[in-house]
C-alpha cells in the first residue's frame, strides 16, 4: 500500500503530504462548511455591539439588537408602514454596527445619530422615502432609553464589559455601606449629645439660654432655670471608658476611606495580578480590621448590649483572623485583570491562593487563544491549564466561576453580575477564541465557534445553588448541551444538481480548521481521490469503541467558489480533539445533563426496578381521614382526650387550656400553670377530690377529668363521684 495509492490514509497517518502540494486549507482559503453562511456579519443581527449602561436602576449591559427590538415593539405598528419602519430602523442598526467595527469610543446616542445621517444621505433614496425615514428615525430616537458606551466583539470589549459590571456592583455596594456607616455615626453622635445634655454645663445657664428662642430670652432667668433642674444622677451619665470607646469607634467610622457617597472609595481596587491584589489587601488589612472592630463596637453600643467582661477581651484580641464572611461582603471587592496568555508560575500560585481564600477577589483571566499546541519548555500543556482553569476553580468549592467566549458575554451577563455581587472570590475565564490575524473569519465568528465546537464551552458554576453538585453548573448558553457535538443543517447541491440537506456535527476540528496555524494538519482531497475508507470526523471519533483501523477521518470545507471539499485530518490533531470531547463529556456529567448514555442507563435501571417490584404486590396508600360524628360537650372532650388514658386517673387536657384561671384560683397548689401558662395537675395530695370535681364543673371547656378519688376517707365521696361521672 503506497502513498500514491492511498494519499489520504498516508497523510492521515504521517501528516506528510506530497511535496509541493498546496492542499492545506489556508492556501486554498477553505472555510468550515457550517460557517459559510455567517461569513458576512453585516447582513446578520447578533448581540454585538453591546451597550455599557451607567444610569442607576437600568440593566448594566444591554445589546443593540435588544434595544432595537424594544424600540420596534413600541413604534412599529402592524401592517405595511410597520414593515417600512422596521426596515428603516434596522438599516440604522446595521450602520451603527459598521461604525462600531472601527471605533470603540462611541456613545449609543451619538452612534445612532451618525448612522441615521448616513442612511439619510444615501443617494439612492427618493425624497419621499427620505422624509419617511426621517420621521421613523425621530420616533425611534425618542424611544432609545438609557445611553451608554458601545463596544464591539473582541478582547477589549470583554474586558470592558466585565469591568463595567464590576464597577456598577461595587459603586452600589459602596454607597449602601456608606449609608449604613453614616447612620451609625449619626446615632453614635446622638448618644454622646444625649450624654452632654445630662452633664452639668449641658444643663447650665448658657446652654439653656442658647436653646431658647431669642425673643423669649428676656423673659427667663437662666441661672434660676438651671439651678432648679434636677442634678442628673452620676450613674445615669455615660461611664468614662464607655464614652471613650464610643468616641474612638466614632473616629474610625468617620475616618474610613473605603466607602463614599458617590461609591468611589479612596483606595484603588483594580489591579493586574493576584500577587498585587494580595499585597494591597495585606496593606489595607489593618484599616479593615480597625473599621470592622469599630462597626462591632457601634452595633453593641447602640443596642446597649456591650458588656465589658465579654467584649473587652474579644475586641482587644480582634485581628485579621477575626474577620468573617460578613466583613468580606461589607468591604469592597478587588478586580484582578490577569493576562491569561502571560501567566507565570508565581502568578498561578497567587491565583489559586486567591480563589481558595474567602476574600472578595474577582479575577478576570482573558486569553486570545483557546488552543495552542504544546511546545517543549512550555510548563505542561498550555491547552490543559487554560481550558482546565475554570473547571479547576469550580473544584475549589468556594469560588463563583464564569467561563465564556467573547461572543457569549452578553448571554451570561447575569451570571457575571451574580459573581460580582456574591460574597467571596470569583473567576471570570474569558477567551476571544483565537489570536488575531490567524483566521480568515471575523473575530465574533471565531469566538462563537469556539463555544459551538466545545473547544471553549460557556458555563457558570455557582457554589451556592442548591445541594447537589449538578445544580451548581449551568450549560444553557452552549448549543444543544445534551449532545456531544452540536448538529446543524447543511444544505448543498450534489454533483447532479439535486438539493441535499444533511445534519452535520460541528466539532473542535472544524473550529481548528479555520485557524491557519493548524493548516498543516489538514489536506484537501480532490473528489476523484475520495474512497470508502474516508469517514466523517464525528463518526471516526464516535466514542471509545469506534473501530478506526484503516479509516480516514475528513471534514467538509468550502472553497471560494462555493465548492464543497473533503479535507483529511492528520492523526496528530485528533489527540487534542479526543481530549476536548472527554472534557466536554465530564462537564456534561458535572452539570447533570441527561446525555443519551445516561438516559440509556436510567431506562435499564427502571426496567430492573419494575421487574423486581411486581413480585411484592400493592403498597397501601397513605391513611384517609376518618370522619367523626357531632357529640355533646362532655363526650366531645372524652373523644378528644383519646382513649389511651385509664379513666380513673385524674388529668387535664393541658394543650387545650385557655388560661382562664378558674381552676388555678381554686387551688393553686393542686393546679399549676406550665411554662406555656396552661394548667396541669401538679400535686393531688395538695387538694381534695371535692375541689377536683368542682374545678371540673367550673371548667367551661370540660378539660378536667376528675377520675377516681385518691383519698378514700374524704367525706361524701359517692355524691362527688356521681357529679364527676359526666367528666370521666
Amino acid at each position, binding site marked *: 500500500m503506497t502513498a500514491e495509492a492511498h494519499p489520504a490514509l498516508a497523510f492521515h497517518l504521517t501528516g506528510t503530504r506530497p511535496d509541493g502540494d498546496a492542499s492545506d486549507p489556508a492556501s486554498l482559503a477553505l472555510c468550515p462548511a457550517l460557517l459559510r453562511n455567517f461569513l458576512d456579519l453585516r447582513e446578520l443581527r447578533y448581540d454585538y455591539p453591546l451597550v455599557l449602561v451607567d444610569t442607576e436602576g437600568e440593566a448594566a449591559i444591554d445589546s443593540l439588537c435588544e434595544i432595537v427590538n424594544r424600540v420596534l415593539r413600541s413604534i412599529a405598528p402592524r401592517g405595511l408602514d410597520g414593515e417600512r419602519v422596521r426596515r428603516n430602523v434596522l438599516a440604522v442598526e446595521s450602520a451603527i454596527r459598521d461604525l462600531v467595527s472601527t471605533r470603540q469610543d462611541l456613545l449609543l446616542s451619538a452612534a445612532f445619530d451618525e448612522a441615521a445621517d448616513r442612511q439619510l444621505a444615501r443617494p439612492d433614496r427618493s425624497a419621499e422615502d427620505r422624509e419617511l425615514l426621517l420621521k421613523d428615525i425621530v420616533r425611534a430616537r425618542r424611544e432609545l432609553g438609557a445611553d451608554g458606551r458601545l463596544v464591539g466583539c473582541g478582547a477589549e470589549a470583554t474586558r470592558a464589559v466585565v469591568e463595567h459590571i464590576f464597577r456598577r456592583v461595587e459603586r452600589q455596594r459602596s454607597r449602601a455601606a456608606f449609608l449604613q456607616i453614616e447612620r451609625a455615626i449619626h446615632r453614635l453622635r446622638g448618644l454622646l449629645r444625649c450624654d452632654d445634655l445630662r452633664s452639668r454645663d449641658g444643663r447650665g445657664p448658657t446652654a439653656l439660654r*442658647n436653646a431658647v428662642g431669642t425673643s*423669649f430670652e428676656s423673659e427667663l432667668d437662666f441661672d434660676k432655670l438651671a439651678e*432648679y433642674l434636677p442634678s442628673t444622677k452620676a450613674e445615669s451619665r455615660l461611664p468614662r471608658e464607655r464614652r471613650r470607646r464610643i468616641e474612638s469607634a466614632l473616629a474610625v467610622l468617620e475616618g474610613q476611606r473605603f466607602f463614599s457617597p458617590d461609591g468611589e472609595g479612596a483606595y484603588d481596587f483594580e489591579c493586574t495580578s493576584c500577587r498585587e491584589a494580595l499585597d494591597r489587601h495585606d496593606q489595607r488589612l489593618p484599616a479593615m480590621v480597625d473599621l470592622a472592630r469599630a462597626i462591632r463596637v457601634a452595633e453593641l453600643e447602640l443596642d446597649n448590649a456591650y458588656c465589658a467582661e465579654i467584649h473587652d477581651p474579644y475586641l482587644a484580641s480582634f485581628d485579621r483572623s477575626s474577620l468573617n464572611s460578613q466583613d468580606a461582603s461589607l468591604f469592597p471587592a478587588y478586580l484582578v485583570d490577569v493576562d491569561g496568555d502571560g501567566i507565570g508560575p508565581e502568578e498561578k500560585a497567587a491565583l489559586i491562593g486567591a480563589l481558595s481564600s474567602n476574600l472578595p477577589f474577582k479575577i478576570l483571566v482573558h486569553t486570545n487563544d483557546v488552543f495552542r499546541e504544546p511546545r517543549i519548555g512550555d510548563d505542561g500543556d498550555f491547552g490543559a491549564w487554560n481550558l482546565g482553569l475554570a473547571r479547576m476553580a469550580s473544584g475549589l468549592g468556594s469560588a463563583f466561576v464564569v467561563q465564556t467566549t467573547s461572543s457569549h458575554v452578553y448571554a451570561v451577563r447575569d451570571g457575571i453580575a451574580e459573581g460580582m455581587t456574591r460574597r467571596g472570590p470569583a473567576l471570570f475565564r474569558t477567551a476571544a477564541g483565537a489570536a488575531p490575524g490567524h483566521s480568515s473569519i471575523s473575530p465574533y465568528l471565531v469566538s462563537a465557534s469556539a463555544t459551538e465546537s466545545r473547544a471553549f464551552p460557556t458555563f457558570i458554576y455557582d457554589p451556592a445553588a442548591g445541594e447537589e453538585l449538578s445544580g451548581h453548573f449551568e450549560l444553557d448558553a452552549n448549543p444543544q448541551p445534551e449532545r456531544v457535538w452540536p448538529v446543524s443543517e447543511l444544505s448543498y447541491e450534489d454533483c447532479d444538481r439535486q438539493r441535499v440537506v444533511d445534519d452535520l456535527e460541528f466539532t473542535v476540528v472544524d473550529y481548528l480548521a479555520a485557524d491557519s496555524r493548524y493548516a498543516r494538519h489538514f489536506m484537501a482531497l480532490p473528489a476523484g481521490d475520495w474512497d470508502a475508507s474516508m469517514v466523517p470526523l464525528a463518526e471516526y471519533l464516535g466514542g471509545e469503541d469506534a473501530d478506526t483501523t484503516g479509516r480516514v477521518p475528513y471534514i467538509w470545507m468550502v472553497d471560494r467558489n462555493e465548492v464543497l471539499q473533503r479535507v483529511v485530518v492528520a492523526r496528530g490533531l485528533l489527540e487534542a480533539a479526543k481530549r476536548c470531547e472527554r472534557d466536554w463529556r465530564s462537564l456534561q456529567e458535572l452539570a447533570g445533563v441527561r446525555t443519551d448514555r445516561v438516559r440509556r442507563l436510567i431506562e435499564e435501571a427502571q426496567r430492573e426496578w419494575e421487574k423486581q417490584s411486581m413480585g411484592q404486590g400493592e403498597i397501601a396508600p397513605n391513611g384517609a381521614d376518618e370522619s367523626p360524628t357531632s357529640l355533646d360537650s362532655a363526650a366531645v372532650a372524652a373523644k378528644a382526650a383519646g382513649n389511651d388514658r385509664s379513666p380513673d386517673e385524674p388529668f387535664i387536657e393541658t394543650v387545650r387550656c385557655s388560661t382562664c384561671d378558674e381552676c388555678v384560683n381554686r387551688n393553686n397548689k393542686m393546679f399549676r400553670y406550665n411554662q406555656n401558662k396552661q394548667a396541669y395537675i401538679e400535686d393531688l395530695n395538695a387538694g381534695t377530690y371535692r375541689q377536683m370535681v368542682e374545678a371540673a364543673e367550673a371548667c367551661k371547656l370540660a378539660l378536667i377529668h376528675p377520675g377516681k378519688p385518691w383519698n378514700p376517707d374524704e367525706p361524701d365521696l359517692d355524691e362527688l363521684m356521681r357529679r364527676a361521672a359526666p367528666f370521666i
Partner: protein
Amino acid sequence: MTASELGPSGSADGGSPLRAPIETVEAHIVEVISDSGEGAQKCAQAFATVSAKTGNGVWTVEIIPAEIQPPARSIAGASGNRIRIGSHDVTNGGDAADLILAFNDQVLLGRVRAGELRPGCIVLLESKWKDDSDPDVAKQYNDAIEYLTREGYRVYEIPIEAECLKYVANPKRGRNMFALGILNSVYGQDTELSCDHIRYTFAKKGDDVVDGNIELLEAGYRWARDNLDIRFCVPPSSTRERQIVVNGNTALGLGIMASGMEVCSMYPITPATSASHYLSDVFRKAGGTVHQAEDEIAACCFAIGASYAGKCAVTITSGPGYSLKQEALGLAVMAEIPLVVVNVQRGGPSTGQPTKVEQGDLLTAVFGSHGDAPKIVMAAASIEDCFYAMITARKLAELYRTPVIVLTDANLATAQQPIPRPEFRAEWAAPPFDQSPVGDDSAPYDWDPKTGLSDRFLPGRPSGMHTLTGLAHDRHSRVAYDPEINHEGLRRRSLKLATFQKALQTPRVHGDREGDLLVVGWGSTKGAIEEAVDRLRSEGCSVSSLHLKFLQPMASGLGEILRRFTRVMTVEISWCDDLQEEMIDEDNRRYSNLAWLLRGRYLVDVDCWSEVKGQPIKPGSIARAVRARLDDLHSPNSRVG
C-alpha cells in the same frame, strides 16, 4: 429730577413735569380693596414688599369678606389689604387709612361706613362705573362721588380700565398692576423693585404674563406721575440688617422646623391651617412629617404618641379644635408627656368668626381639662415671637415634661411684617431621644422631692419598662389605689409649675415705672397698646403699659408693679361687661380673661376695657378709652377703684 422720577427705566415720554411738592410723613396707612378675586391682595402684598425693600417698617392686615365668593359690588364684600408703612418699626395696623385705592364705589362705601378712613382721606376710585351701561350702577357711582366729596374726602377718579385697555385685552387680569404703578409713583418708590417682585411672583405663569404686568405697572406709574398732584415720602429707617417678610403662621412653620421637632399633627381649621399648608411644603427638608389626622382628637393623640416614643411633637389648631383636645391634654399632663399645642385663636364662642381675631381662649388654656391639670401657657406678642415661641415651647415641654400651650390669633396669623432674619443655633434643634439603659433604682416618675421634676423613660430604654396611664399612679406608674398616692401626684405636678415660675424674669414696664394708670395686655395687642400709650405720654398723661408673654405661670414682681400705679386696667379682645350698663355692678360684672387672672392673683382691683368686633383694636380706640379712665381718675367724684 432724579432718575427714579423719570419713571421706570427712563422710558418717560416727556410728560408734563410733576406739579405737587412731595410731602414727607412719619407713617402712612394705605388700603387697596376690590371685589374678591380681582387681585387687590396681590397688589397690596407687592406694595408691602416694595416698601420693606425701600427700608420702611411695614404691617399688613388682611381685609377678608366672610364668604368665599361674595356678590360683586356688595358693600360687605370688600376684599384686600391694609398696608401701614413707617419710618420706624410698625407694630400694628394703626387707626384710619390715609389713602385708599378702590376698584368700585360699593366696597369703598363699605370701608367708609366701617369708619376705616381718616377724615380727608385720599380716595383713588376706578371711574369706569361713571357711564356704566346699567343706569343703577352709574347712579350709585355718581351718588357715591357726590357723598364722598361732601364728606370732605379728596376724591380722584382714575380711568384704570380705560388705561389698561390700551395695553391688554382683558383688563380684569392686569388692573391691579396698574394700581401698583400708581402707588409706586405716589410714594416715590423705584418701579424696578416692583418688577423684580412681579418676575418672582408670576414666574410660573410664563414670560408673557410677566411682561404684560410690567407694562401695566409702568403705565400706572406714568399716569399717576402725569395726572395726580399728591406725592408722599416715608423716609426709610436708618439701621437695616437683613430681614424676612413673613406672616405669623409662616413664622410658626419656620419655628417648628428650627425646633427640630419631627412630627406636626393637625386637622384643618381656620385660621390655623395656613401654617400647616406651608409646613407640608417644606417640613420634609428638615426631616419632619406633617400628619393630617382624621379629627382634632386624633391629631392630638397622634402627637402624644409621637412625643411619648420620641422627640416632642406639636399639634396646631384653633378655638374649636382646642376645646376638642381637652381630654387628651389632661392625659399629657397626668402622664407628663412633653407636647407643644398651638392655638391660633379666632372669634368665639362656638363657630364664632373663623377669620376674625379674638383673645377669648386664655382661661380655657390656663384652666382647661377637667381636674387639676397645670400647663405652661405662653402667648406670642409679635410675628417674631411666633417663630421663637416654637423653639422655646419645645425646650420647656421637654425640660418640664408637660404640655406647653402657645396662644396666637388670627391677627398675627395673617399679618405680614419684616423681622430680623433669625440666625440658626444648633442648640435650638431637639437632641436625639435618649435610649440609654435606666438605672436600677430609678422610676418612670422619679419626682425630685423639691421640684417635682424627673427624667423620662422612653420606650427602647432597657429595664425602663412601665405602663404609662391616665389613672392616678405612683412614682413607678403603678395604678394608685390608696388616697395618699393621688395626693402626691397632684402635688408633684403642681411643684413643677412653681419651679418653672421661679425662673421667670419680671417683664419690663413700657413707660415710667410708676404713675396714674398701668395698661396690661397680652398677645397681639402689644403694638397697638404701646402706640396708644406713647401718644398719651406725649400729651403729658402719666400712663405706662405692661405686656405678658407667660400667662401660666406668671412672673414674680408683677404684684409690686401693679401696686405702683393708682389704677390698673387690661386691654384685651375678649368680652367684659361695662360698668356703665344699668344691670352691671361690681357683683355681676364679668371681666376679660387676663383681668380675672390678675385680680385673682394680686388682689388688685384691675379694671378692663375691650372691643370684641373681630378686628385688631386700633391704637386710637385704646387711647380714647385710657384717656377716659384718666379723666375719670382725676374727676372729684371718681368711684373708689
